């Protein structure tokens, strides 16, 4: 991904920096949970860092589901002869 034509945004060092910044933001977000008084509606949603792990796992499950569905139902994009 960090290929040619030297725009600063796609240089390898910028991308590494972005990853570091992103990781810090994620860590801080979860850490801040310790200072919030949870107002759970149900049960699971009161657990530590609920939205973080729930969001992550939901996305992984969705991508895996899509992958499986794709194996069954993906076709070349000229399938209908368009």
């Amino acid at each position, binding site marked *: 991904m960090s290929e040619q034509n030297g725009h600063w945004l796609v240089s390898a060092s910028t991308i590494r920096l972005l990853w570091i910044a992103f990781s810090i933001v994620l860590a801080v977000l979860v850490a801040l949970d310790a200072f919030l008084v*949870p107002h759970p509606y149900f049960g699971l949603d009161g657990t530590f860092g609920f939205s973080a792990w729930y*969001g992550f796992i939901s996305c992984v499950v969705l991508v895996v589901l899509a992958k499986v569905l794709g194996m069954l139902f*993906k076709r070349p994009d000229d399938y209908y002869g368009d």
Partner: protein
Amino acid sequence: MGIDFAMPPALALIFAGLLLPFLRAEARAALLLLAPALALWLVWLVPDGVALSLPFLGHELAVVNGSKLSRLFGTAFAIMALAGGLFSLNQKNLLELAAAYVYAGSALGVVFAGDLITLFVFWELMAIASTLVLWSNGSKARAAGLRYAIMHLLGGVILMAGIAGEAAMTGSIAFHAMDLSTIPPQFILAGFLINAAATPLSAWLPDAYPQASWSGMVFLSAFTTKTAIYVMMVGFAGAEILVWLGLAMMFYGIIYAILENDMRRILAYSIVNQVGFMVTGIGIGTEMALNGAAAHAFTHIIYKALLLMSAGSVLYMTAKSKCTDLGGLFRTMPVTTICGIVGALSISSFPFTSGFVSKSMILEGAADEHLAVVWYLLMAASAGVFLHAGIKFPWFVFFQKDSGLRPADPPWNMQAGMIIAALLCIGIGVLPAPLYAILPYATSYVPYTLNHVMSQLQLLLFSGLAFFLMLGWLKRTLTITLDTDWLWRKPGSIASLWLIDCFDSGWTWLVKALGSSVQSTVANLRRSHGPLGLFGRTWPTGTMAFWTTVMLAAFLILGMLFHADI
């Protein structure tokens, strides 16, 4: 009664649409902008209750019937037409512009219709006008447009059957909350659901919309599904089946969008996903959930138009729409990129964007009703929205790899349309009070609590983490994913070709069989009665005289034989 009078807001846009093709360029541009503004003004002149009625076949049609909900949708439609009109100023295809304005006007007609017949008339007008928006994009949209038209005409027939049944059973054509215990309202709901792109009949939307032009899809995204949301809010709030249908639509939209390669088809699937949130809100049916569904329809119309304007700008400048062909456009299209990102954040309900203040109310509605399963699924779907639209669309179009394309930002009017929509997305997100004030029910909902903002940020950013960690699995390929439209595009078309074949050979056989018997009859008749036949040929007078003489002689002889005494 009779004192309240209001001009139908629909007429402003429908007349403008019919007039547009006959105007010169400058006048046309002025009308494109003035007509939606006039429509917006008319929307706010409509009072509560019936403001215009007409007698028709023994019924009294409530052609204009105002409510908070209809003004809310009317406002969104008029703003949408204004932004879309500005974006389309440089659209040379006059048929598309005319059809788009008639389409937008008909949508206004539906949300102000106080009876089922008026509703039906504008409903069908929408189907026709939107088909023309598709067809105006030339031969490549012809087949998809035909499939779209067939689906909507079928929906119209089902709706009409329901309306006729309702009128026959109750004697009333009033449009109000209906009970699903009898059959006619079930038909009416089915007709509405087809337009809402509810699963399993959602395939028409991603099949047809991406075949429209760069500006056509901006209009198409706004009206059909959202009028369906409006009519279901009026007619079927609290119908439990809608909760589950909505959830199915949400996950269908996410999974198909993840697999999709064409940027506008990604956004088409995400329309189904977003409408799913609204349908679920309607199914929950409490004031909070209905406010949420209405608010979400309002914000969705604007941010979806923004996303499609951004995608339309890319298509207009590069003539490409596949993720595999795109990438790296942020370098030369900064305005389009930033506006696209604002739209993507809004659809993902990022704090301080419009989606955050509207979708939260639907989740709050589910939580208030202690619908645990529904709430957890809504949360999962919210994470999935960021995945399939929030990051995927801007990432694959504007970043990803360097495609080598260096298009500039589009003409000023297209940029202006995007910027206005982007400002609205952020404005509503930062200052939700004006939107909350025009919702159907009074609300004291506060979206910005520390817990809520933190929770949403966690949800979205960790979805982002999942996206980038699983990027290898999300790489785009030159593929489509089979949907339910496969049923009528493959086996369906084979079956219909076979039927045509059967009919054809049956007809040929019938014609041949009938033909040979007719021919033999004709030949027989010709033999006896033809010009040379015994009974047909001309006889000379002499022959007749001879035969007369023979017969008289025979008579004389017979008489003499049997009555010799005469």
